[in-house]
């Protein structure tokens, strides 16, 4: 079984994003970028399936301009067997990424795609499900546990009310939730080795995907700020304010 793990390089989760002063977009200049945390979880899940003898190869792929290769290097250092870079210009919409990934899945004859449930930059949460639809594959989103036996998958997924368990067959798309696993760290020797590994380059054109923007970002701005609050000194004062000032406790 071949597993494909799409990865995205995003602003590090510990850094607060700011808008460009003209409001045209997000100001990322000079800020620390990292692999999307959900993609690290996806890669870890794929690596564990391979280490358990259930997968033959783990391929990672990233779509975008030159810097996305940094993310692929990280994925290689963590243990991905191969890395594919789909060169594509500009900010890519989820549907475009799904189309690029579909072409890669077909070309590489992948059986299982494991990807993050969302990227923590645009928080769209669409790509995995779109890819599953384009391939006419089943999906199990928000996975908290994956069991695999041949072509049968059992996935426990997080839902709004708790969890549910789905039984499905490969080929399939799984998207990862936070509690699926705790990703490993890359060791220094592996980081060094990953620098020398080849990254296969593909282009949107060669994959037969035309890129047209269907969404236009008109403005990016800070949301309304909350009025500053106060410190209280005691439980009595807190309750008094909640009852008589805020009137949220009766």
């Amino acid at each position, binding site marked *: 079984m071949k597993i494909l793990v799409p990865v995205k390089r995003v602003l590090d989760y510990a850094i607060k994003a700011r808008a460009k002063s003209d409001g045209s977009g997000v100001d990322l200049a000079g800020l620390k970028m990292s692999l999307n945390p959900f993609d690290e979880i996806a890669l870890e899940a794929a690596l564990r399936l391979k280490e358990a003898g259930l997968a033959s190869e783990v391929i990672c792929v990233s779509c975008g301009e030159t810097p996305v290769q940094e993310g692929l290097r990280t994925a290689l250092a963590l243990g991905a067997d191969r890395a594919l870079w789909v060169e594509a210009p500009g900010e890519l919409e989820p549907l475009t990424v799904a189309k690029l990934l579909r072409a890669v899945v077909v070309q590489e004859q992948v059986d299982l795609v494991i990807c993050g449930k969302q990227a923590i*930059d645009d928080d769209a949460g669409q790509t995995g*499900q779109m890819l599953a639809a384009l391939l006419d594959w089943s999906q199990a989103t928000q996975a908290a546990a994956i069991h695999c036996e041949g072509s049968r998958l059992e996935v426990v997924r997080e839902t*709004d009310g708790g969890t*549910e368990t789905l039984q499905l067959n490969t080929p399939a798309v799984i998207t990862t939730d936070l509690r699926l696993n705790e990703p490993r760290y890359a060791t220094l020797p592996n980081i060094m080795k990953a620098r020398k590994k080849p990254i296969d380059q593909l282009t949107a054109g060669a994959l037969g995907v035309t890129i047209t923007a269907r*969404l*236009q970002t008109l403005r990016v701005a800070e949301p309304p700020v909350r009025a500053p*609050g*106060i410190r209280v000194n005691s439980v009595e004062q807190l309750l008094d304010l*909640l009852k008589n000032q805020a009137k949220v406790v009766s």
Partner: protein
Amino acid sequence: MSTPVLVVAELTSDGLLKPALRSVLGAAAALNAEIHVLLIGHQLETVIDEALRLPITRLLVADHPSLAVPLAETTTTVVRAISQRYSHILTAASAQGKGWLPRLAALEDVAMISDIVAIESPDTFVRPIYAGSLWATVRCLEPRKFVSVRVTAFSPLNGASSEPVSRENLSLDDWPAVPVIRSAVHEHPDEGRPALENARTVVSGGRGLGSAEQFEALLGPLADALHGALGASRAAVDLGYAPNDLQVGQTGKVVAPDLYIAVGISGAIQHLAGIQAAKVIVAINKDPDAPIFGVADYGLVGDLHEIVPQLTASLKNP
């Protein structure tokens, strides 16, 4: 009359309408068009009666044994059968909505918009990005718009239709096959507390609670004294203090209660993403520099093990 808009409803495990539907209708109302609601499932008679009293013009019903379990794959097939009739398709940005709407969008080659918090015009929407640190105003150039709605951001559309709601039973030539089997469901008991999504008061706990036992022993009685729901930070869920469906934040649930009490929660941006719309935020934390105090309306510095029992006792015996 302009093209109608479609709202796809979601059912509770008891087969009733989720209250969030009213908020999605609130968003749909901003589009100034006829609103149709689609119910998908099996043996829907009770919920149909309920839905016929909504402030909408038409109720569409897809009732078939293959739809008894809500799956992204089957939901997509049903909505696809009628999607061409509508200018907009809206649903809640819930676990279910997040599952099927992108599938539909891809099959129809439509770029969709996730998790909107405002509608500026029928083609322009506001949505949070980067854990809600920023809001993007996005124009959708597609002729048809597929949109998931952050329900806490819209006022519910209450009341009933003044005209009788017409009913249409869908009969598909090919009802979807069921590609995935749901073999188990674990919904944790609600302990008689309101659902986190719609609670007027939420008491949330973080790593500071220290254990699952302390989490329930300290926060349970406080939530009950306030008739509120329990919530949790990611750390509290990861550590097993609270079940996953209580996680509040960027990658958990978004809440908008009148009162949100954060106990032993530091206030990471990922957590704050889920509580920005709360009317009043109270923080109880022993670290005076915890970022949660930056957003709290009322902050109380101290040990939660002392403060929380005092607060609960004062509420019970004023």
